């Protein structure tokens, strides 16, 4: 009879069926067995909010001194599986268990939070990297867990270059590779439109005014109006 250790309570459970899924007879935890290795699946509860994730990213960019506004290309929220092993020597190993995160910066360690067992009926993405591959260079782990992390994968554009960032749904921590250097001068389209309109009005007033006195008065009035418009726009921001 095959036996394995329950990943939740440590009880030596007998594997009575050929299925991958087993229930511990002591603590009633449902766990999976991959190649003789028992694995418990846990997740961090999170309510998705794309706006907050994007806000956390541009907040960090602002703090980093980015002058050019970043533009989002795609924001996708999802749970992503990670292998997490407690080893006999006391250390831990943490690695992405799926390929959906390819190209995105990964969290180096699990975030702090309340780990829960998935409720019945709730399914999470399954790992594409087998535990044998993850454990290839690791001696027998004491405990192997499949952690489902809520992550926002964000693709955005900064200085005309595509960038990728990952935002943790647990702590709103942003994982970001090196940012591209901001080169050249970047002027927003709304600012260009405002300046274009301002210059056009000045030219119109300058050419239509009958003499230097009225020209000066009109141009001064347009200048004051534009200044007031800018200040009011800043206050709204």
């Amino acid at each position, binding site marked *: 009879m095959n036996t394995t250790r329950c990943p939740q309570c440590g009880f030596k459970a007998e594997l009575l069926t050929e299925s991958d899924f087993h229930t511990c007879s002591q*603590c009633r935890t449902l766990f999976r067995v991959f190649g003789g290795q028992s694995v418990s699946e846990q997740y961090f509860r999170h309510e998705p909010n794309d706006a907050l994730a994007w*806000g956390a990213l541009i907040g960090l960019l602002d*703090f980093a001194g980015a002058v050019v506004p970043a533009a989002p290309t795609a924001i996708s929220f999802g749970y992503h599986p990670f292998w997490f092993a407690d080893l006999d020597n006391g250390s831990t190993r943490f690695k992405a268990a799926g390929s959906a995160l390819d190209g995105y910066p990964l969290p180096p360690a*699990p975030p702090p939070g309340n780990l829960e067992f998935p409720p019945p009926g709730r399914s999470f993405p399954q790992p594409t990297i087998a535990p044998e591959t993850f454990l290839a260079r690791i001696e027998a782990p004491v405990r192997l867990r499949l952690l489902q992390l809520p992550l926002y994968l964000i693709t955005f554009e900064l200085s005309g270059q595509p960038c990728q960032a990952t935002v943790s749904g647990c702590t709103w921590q942003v994982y970001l590779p090196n940012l591209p250097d901001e080169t050249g001068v970047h002027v927003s389209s709304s600012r260009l439109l405002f300046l274009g309109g301002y210059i056009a009005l000045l030219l119109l007033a300058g050419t239509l005014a009958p003499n230097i006195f009225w020209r000066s008065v009109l141009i001064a009035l347009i*200048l004051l109006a534009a200044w007031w418009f800018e200040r009011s726009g800043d206050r709204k921001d």
Partner: protein
Amino acid sequence: MATIVFKCPHCGGPFECAEGDRGAVCRFCGVTSVISGDSGVHRLLIRERIDLNAARTAVRKLLAAGESGRESATSFSFKEGTLFFLPFWRVRGMATGWQWREKETFREEVDYDENGTRFTRTVKGENERSFSLIAKPLDFSTPAGEYSSFGQMRVGIAAAVLKCEALDYQDTAARGTVADPLKGVAQARQEALAVTRGGGNSEGTIRREERVRISSEWLALTYYPVWRLLFTRGGRVYPVAIDAVNGDVIRCQFPGEERRERFLPLAFIAMVLLGWTTTPTAGVALTALAVYLLKWRTGTLDAPSIIKLLAGTSKRSAGVQRG
């Protein structure tokens, strides 16, 4: 992993189980026993001393003390706050053992060259071997997870000074999120022993053997309260971590205020256009004046600086950062 011997509650026979096991079968009578408890690990809680309002006020005060002062403090809006209880391992006991070291030594010898000039040279001496017994009191604390998003906290000191109480999970979870420990006790022990060994690796040591273990060990998971607040401004989100015991802001990254020249760029454009729409001579004269004023204002005449000024590109003052 330690092996623990229990007495079977049914037949009284001894049986063994590994540390962390929650169940074992008696090999004499076959009765399964459920083992409760946490293998000697105490779970302690340091209760929060400041509430959400006080945490918000602490952040506002920090912002108000920054370069942009009151303007900055009022520009950020509070969105939400969550209380986290972060677990820290605390290991106390006596680090006892022995240490053997072999150290290479050098001495200076005086010699004379063929011209009779005196010089000193360093000559390798005999290796020095030493054996010492270690008996050091140990009181070590380490985070039981990765808390870089919460900044650095010295919970070891706090737990020694502040009143700790036994963790009531239901009550604590009702007030905030109780984080799970992700670092095992074995790793905490190793870190504690590494601290004990620290400093023993003196210069010249070529070999070292040691066996150090913790005796009279007392283990605890101390849950420390930290507020995680979210502030927003213009669609941007700024997470802040506040020590819920003393109200210190332990981690925040607020950008400085944007400073933008509003009037000058508009005035330069108006001046140049006034000149060119009057007479070419006036246009040339006012353009020259504008260029002179631009150089005075920006300190340079390179195109990007002038375009940035005329386009109203903003500059940012120093922000507020902790952690």
